């Protein structure tokens, strides 16, 4: 919901908001330029009377004297029936050049205020300011949610290029954008007279004036009492009308000055509405506050970047969603399918189910579990397909499901069935599906089918479950699922470094190059300067479909495309289909694989220390992070192996990284040596140092087996106890990330 509130207005009004922001950015420079030009006397140095006297010397036909908020002074005068306007020196009253407002600035200002469309355009610009306010607030709320709370807003960020820039720049400029939007809305409302701005209150014209002859302007008491820096405008009396008066506007109020006695007449101080308006006007335009103007201008200039990265993020998310044809509205559907998925593979199954049910003549509504509605008026059955993330947690699209469940009602007679997706190799197999089923039962809803689980995307098991659903519906339901896989690429093995044979843990670091595509394409790609590698970073996942199985296996990448090779670290498991295939792959041989971005698992932005924890082949992506630590941020590695003589993975590289300070500290633990220890022991032994790093805002990245991750978590909870922290809190703050298998 919040996301829609952010992306829909953002997409719809992107061009409009960009136009206003860019024109505002251009205008923001004006106050600073004017200030550079203007000479501002000290307070109390020059009175309005003194200046007016000097001006009278050079411009006997002066009609009007104006002071801009930046301090520039302009005299309007008539000479031989010709009207003129000049900028004058505030000390001498002498002209320093013709005053001609820049045509470009006037045009940009008109564009900014009304899109050159008059009153209609002003209304549109006001709406754009509202959109900007909505985008700033919803964006901030989304960011707070992503980082685990409002207090965590300044935490380091992770994510792909667009995501990271969008959030990083966004939080930097959001205050400026909020100020611009709020003040813009206020000014628009004042312009349409929805808010009083106090501009209409005018002092009454004096009824009686001193009948005496006009005194020289420099002698008028009221003008002598007014400091030049407080002047807004002085209008001279009509020379042909002896009953006329000077009209004086200052920062504090407006009134008239008798040209004979010099008395201030009908003075009226600005009311609070006027003062508020002027303050907000100043905050919006930066007039007289040139530094604020420039700051607002810089934040406005970020809007095109925000729009483009935002649109790209929306597009990527949109692309990743399977296309569902005939998706009924939630309140019309008789069958509701809810999907909990971390990387979209469960969505593929949901689509197969959706299409088959639609074919059977049902009205089907399919959505993410997070989009659970508060009611489904016509629902007869709720089918939940969900994966499990990490150690029994909810996957990304189901994180809010359990919280929302308490507020949802189903029509009487409606029931549910849960289908879990997972991998039996792991403990906590389909744990979140079990949690979901329990929660639904506790809700008191009838269970239509007992929990079923799908091991490693088995299409047969899915088809069996489809039969059961068919029986429930009283008709045949054939679920034929063909998994859609990302486009894979051909890779050629170019290097293999072997470790661990002596300790029964044969492990290889494998390096691949992109296999040359057929002649013409390669030539074309070279011509276009495109990298044949594609883009990936250390920590992303490599999906390999081994011969003899349709299900891809994922390996964490130990290199980024900038390294020029694709590197993985693989341990050979007894009977392992894919690891066996990779270990037997001869140098020069090819394999097909695809890359799945994993932007959450990489070091966040900023200078905070990074604690890397891993065991065995978990070193792979961690070594990749260290290799790419060109900025030399503090990185501390805790790693566990078996025997330093045999399976000290990446030993030469790590020593090199220590020497050139890409790695600050290396703590290796070995389990098959005399004083055997595990990585969690190292963490406990180093607790004091660890706490100091955490207090400095350190982030923790853990990669390795599930058991290791569990032990590490327990050890860290122990370490964090004196700080009143635990791993769960760090996780919620986005400071603790795992890549476990």
């Amino acid at each position, binding site marked *: 919901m919040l996301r829609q509130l952010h992306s829909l207005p953002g997409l719809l009004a992107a061009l409009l908001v960009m136009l206003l922001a860019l024109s505002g950015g251009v205008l923001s420079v004006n106050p600073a330029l004017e200030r550079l030009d203007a000479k501002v006397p000290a307070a109390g140095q020059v009175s309005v009377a003194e200046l007016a006297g000097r001006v009278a010397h050079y411009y006997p036909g002066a009609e009007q004297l104006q002071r801009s908020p930046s301090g520039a002074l302009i005299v309007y005068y008539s000479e031989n*029936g010709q*009207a003129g*306007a000049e900028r004058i020196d505030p000390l001498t009253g002498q002209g320093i050049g013709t005053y001609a407002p820049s045509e470009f600035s006037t*045009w940009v200002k008109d564009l900014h205020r009304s899109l050159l469309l008059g009153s209609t355009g002003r209304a549109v610009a006001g709406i754009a300011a509202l959109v900007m306010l909505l985008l700033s607030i919803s964006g901030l709320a989304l960011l707070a949610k992503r980082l685990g709370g409002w207090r965590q807003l300044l935490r380091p960020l992770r994510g792909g290029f667009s995501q990271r820039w969008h959030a990083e720049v966004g939080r930097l400029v959001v205050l400026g954008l909020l100020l611009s939007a709020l003040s813009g809305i206020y000014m628009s409302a004042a312009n349409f007279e929805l808010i009083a*701005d106090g501009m209409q209150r*005018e002092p*009454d*014209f004096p009824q009686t004036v001193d009948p005496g002859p006009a005194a020289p302007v420099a002698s008028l008491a009221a003008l002598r009492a007014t400091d030049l820096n407080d002047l807004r405008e002085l209008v001279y009396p009509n020379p042909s*009308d002896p009953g006329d008066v000077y009209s004086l506007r200052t920062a504090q109020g407006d009134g008239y000055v008798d040209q004979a006695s010099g008395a201030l007449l009908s003075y009226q101080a600005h009311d609070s509405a006027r003062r508020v308006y002027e303050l907000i006007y100043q905050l919006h335009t930066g007039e007289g506050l040139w530094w604020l103007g420039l700051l607002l201008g810089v934040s406005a200039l970020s809007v095109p970047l925000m729009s483009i990265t935002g649109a790209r993020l929306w597009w990527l998310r949109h692309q990743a969603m399977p296309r569902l044809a005939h998706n009924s509205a939630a309140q019309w559907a008789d069958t509701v399918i809810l999907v909990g998925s971390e990387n979209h593979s469960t969505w593929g199954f949901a689509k197969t189910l959706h299409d088959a049910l639609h074919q059977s003549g049902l009205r089907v509504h399919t959505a993410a579990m997070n989009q659970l509605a508060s009611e489904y008026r016509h629902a007869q059955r709720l089918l939940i397909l969900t994966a499990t993330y990490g150690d029994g947690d909810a996957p990304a699209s189901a994180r809010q499901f359990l919280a929302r469940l308490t507020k949802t009602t189903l029509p009487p007679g409606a029931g549910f069935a849960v289908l879990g997706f997972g991998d039996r190799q792991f403990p906590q197999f389909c744990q979140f599906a079990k949690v979901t089923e329990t929660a639904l039962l506790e809700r008191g809803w009838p269970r239509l089918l007992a929990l079923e689980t799908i091991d490693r995307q088995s299409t047969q098991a899915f088809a069996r479950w489809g039969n059961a659903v068919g029986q429930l519906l009283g008709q045949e339901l054939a679920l034929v699922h063909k998994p859609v896989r990302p486009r894979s690429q051909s890779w050629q093995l170019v290097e293999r470094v072997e470790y661990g044979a002596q300790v029964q843990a044969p492990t290889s670091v494998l390096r691949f190059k992109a296999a040359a595509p057929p002649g013409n394409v390669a030539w074309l790609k070279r011509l276009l300067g495109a990298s044949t590698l594609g883009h990936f970073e250390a920590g992303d996942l490599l999906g390999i479909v081994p011969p003899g199985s349709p299900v891809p296996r994922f390996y964490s990448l130990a290199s980024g495309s900038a390294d020029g090779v694709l590197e993985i670290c693989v341990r050979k498991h007894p009977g392992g289909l894919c690891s066996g295939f990779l270990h037997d792959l001869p140098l020069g041989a090819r394999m097909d694989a695809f890359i799945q971005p994993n932007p959450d698992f990489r070091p966040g932005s900023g200078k905070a220390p990074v604690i890397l924890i891993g065991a065995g082949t978990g070193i792979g992506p961690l070594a990749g992070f260290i290799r790419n630590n060109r900025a030399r941020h503090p990185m501390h590695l805790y790693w566990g192996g078996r025997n330093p003589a045999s399976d000290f993975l990446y030993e030469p590289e790590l020593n090199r990284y220590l020497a050139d300070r890409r790695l600050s500290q290396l703590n290796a633990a070995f389990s098959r040596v005399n004083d055997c220890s595990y990585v969690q022991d190292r963490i406990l032994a180093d607790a004091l140092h660890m706490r100091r790093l955490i207090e400095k805002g350190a982030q923790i990245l853990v990669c390795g087996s599930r058991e290791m991750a569990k032990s590490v978590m327990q050890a860290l909870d122990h370490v964090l106890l004196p700080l009143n922290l635990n791993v769960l809190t760090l996780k919620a703050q986005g400071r603790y990330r795992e890549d476990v298998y």
Partner: protein
Amino acid sequence: MRRHAMRKIAAAVCLASAIVLPGFVQARAVTLNTELKSYRGNDAYLAFYLTDANGQYQSTLWVAGKKAKYYKHLRDWARGSGLNSSEFDGVTGASVGSGQTLKVTVELADALIDAGYEIRVDSAVEDKREHRAEVKVALTSQGAGKSASGSGYIDAFSYDL
């Protein structure tokens, strides 16, 4: 580029009772033609009003510009009319852009013509200077149709009886 705006109104212009004959009043349509110069900037606010020979404000003929908060910049007119809305109710219209022509018809008592009255025009543009009485022409049968130029934003002004 020039655009023509034609406005006809049937608002009788009220005058002080001293100069309006009691009982039967002969009224007549007067068309005000105003052509603005080309200048950079926003639309101009204009006030057309009648003064006596001494320049004393008598009544408002027409105000171009709808936002009352800017009226104070039409300085002589503002002073004369005291900005009382009863002075300009029903005789206001849109502001006039650079290079545009404004043509409005107002009704005026016959007795005011050739009686020593003047038509004056004040003008103002946002962020630019304001002009008071940039046009001053006598309201006479002879003066009808004769063009006068203004000292500010007005290129040419004439009235037709």
